[in-house]
């Protein structure tokens, strides 16, 4: 119940802040670009776009959201209310994942790509979005300004993005799948290009596990660095 209220509040806030509007514009932009790509390039570009923008949007926005709630002091009020820390965090994850999923589906649907596994697309964009939102909350814990936050995300982004080039294929590159972003990208590519069912299941389970672990860890960091001031 509390979680549901929190999610609803977050969604309303995001609508007010224009998240949805901005993603309509961004989706339109991508669609214009996509419509000009030949099919063989679209097959690569579409999954990359869905992966790199809608799925990662949590990392981009969560910093500002938490900084604002901290600045207005409402975070303190939530801390002294019955709302649990994990509920607060999960609510952010869910509300942002909804934007991710909607944008991912819209971009994919209107690109008229022939072979999409919609269920897999749904699962992979939720799991990817969750990881990046949680990462953002963790990075945010010690920050006081948006610029600080954006700078701090750079090394994490490099750590997460560079290994993705491993998918281009070179010896032992399979080992990089252990890095969550690579696993997520594999699953995302799979939802467009097809993937063996057991590989997809393994990747999804692995990513779900990473999400849960990160959630647990993020709650700890959040409580130690933001909730308690001792």
């Amino acid at each position, binding site marked *: 119940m509390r979680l549901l209220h929190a999610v609803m509040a977050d969604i309303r806030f995001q609508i007010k802040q224009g998240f949805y509007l901005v993603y309509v514009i961004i989706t339109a932009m991508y669609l214009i670009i996509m419509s000009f790509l030949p099919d063989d390039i679209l097959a690569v570009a579409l999954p990359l776009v869905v992966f790199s923008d809608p799925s990662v949007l949590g990392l981009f926005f969560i910093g500002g959201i938490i900084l604002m709630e901290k600045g207005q*002091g409402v975070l*303190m009020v*939530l*801390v*002294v209310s*019955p709302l649990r820390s994990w509920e607060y965090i999960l609510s952010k994850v869910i509300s942002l994942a909804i934007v991710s999923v909607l944008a991912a589906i819209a971009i994919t649907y209107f690109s008229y790509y022939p072979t999409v596994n919609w269920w897999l697309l749904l699962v992979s964009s939720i799991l990817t979005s969750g990881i990046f939102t949680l990462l953002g909350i963790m990075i945010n814990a010690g920050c006081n300004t948006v610029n600080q936050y954006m700078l701090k995300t750079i090394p994490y982004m490099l750590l997460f993005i560079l290994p993705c080039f491993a998918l281009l294929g070179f010896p032992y590159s399979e080992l990089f799948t252990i890095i969550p972003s690579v696993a997520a990208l594999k699953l995302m590519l799979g939802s467009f290009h097809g993937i063996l069912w057991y590989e997809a299941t393994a990747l999804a389970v692995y990513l779900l596990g990473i999400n849960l672990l990160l959630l647990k860890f993020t709650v700890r960091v959040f409580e130690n660095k933001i909730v*308690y*001031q*001792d």
Partner: protein
Amino acid sequence: MIQVENLNFTYKKTRKKAIQEMSFDVKEGEVFGFLGPSGAGKTTTQRLIIGLLRNYHGKIEVLGKERNQWGKDYYEHIGVAFDFPNLYTKLTAKENLQLIGAYYKNECEDPDKLLERVGLLPEKDVRVENFSKGMKMRLNFVRSIMHNPRLMFFDEPTSGLDPMNAHIIKEIILEQKKANKTIFLTTHNMTVAEQLCDRVAFIVEGKIVVIGSPKDLMIEHGKRIVNVEFRMNGNNHAKNFDLQNLGENLEFMNILKSAEIKTIHSCEATLEDIFIKLTGRNLV
């Protein structure tokens, strides 16, 4: 309600010993005030009891359980108003109340009624960013009591408010007390303490100097005399008389009968005088 014994607390980051050997208790239905200059440790003590600071030494028993044994359910029973307004500035007054209210199991008070109580009903649909400081403080205050908590913490509830607004807040605190709620407030304003508190604790540099009811303190530390200023034979005079057996004091009665009285004052000390006398420190 609250029992604190030999409480010690040090801020980790600055190694600042903020609270030292503090002991006191707050009874059910009581308004208990923490009085002291800024930096004395009032807010720190409150935050320890609220549970925003961990790793204290000593005992803090709240609502029948040690503080660090409580889970999040604790917050169903307490209400907190911090010393600065914590509100969603992009939401309206009413939306603020509804949003936070939804997190409590208790049925919350009707937002309109609460807003009416603090004179904000006409502005209920105005975004908080357009509120003055006094309006924000009032909204913040009713937000802390809307879920009908048994125990309330107010940090400097009237600081920075004009007399009118301060009066509204004080009235509500007294109403809550009538409803047998327990209230723990901090202030550096003597008048507030005198008007509201059943008992006050003077605190300086993390230690409690004295605890007592304002009246008892005033009687105990005041001088038992009455000062009379009067005009007699064309000259102004001033004289002190012992309060003891005043009615049998012939000189006093004589002055009352024959002189032109300018002023008469009994000289009980103000809370402020007592604070300075006991702690050697000024408030503020």
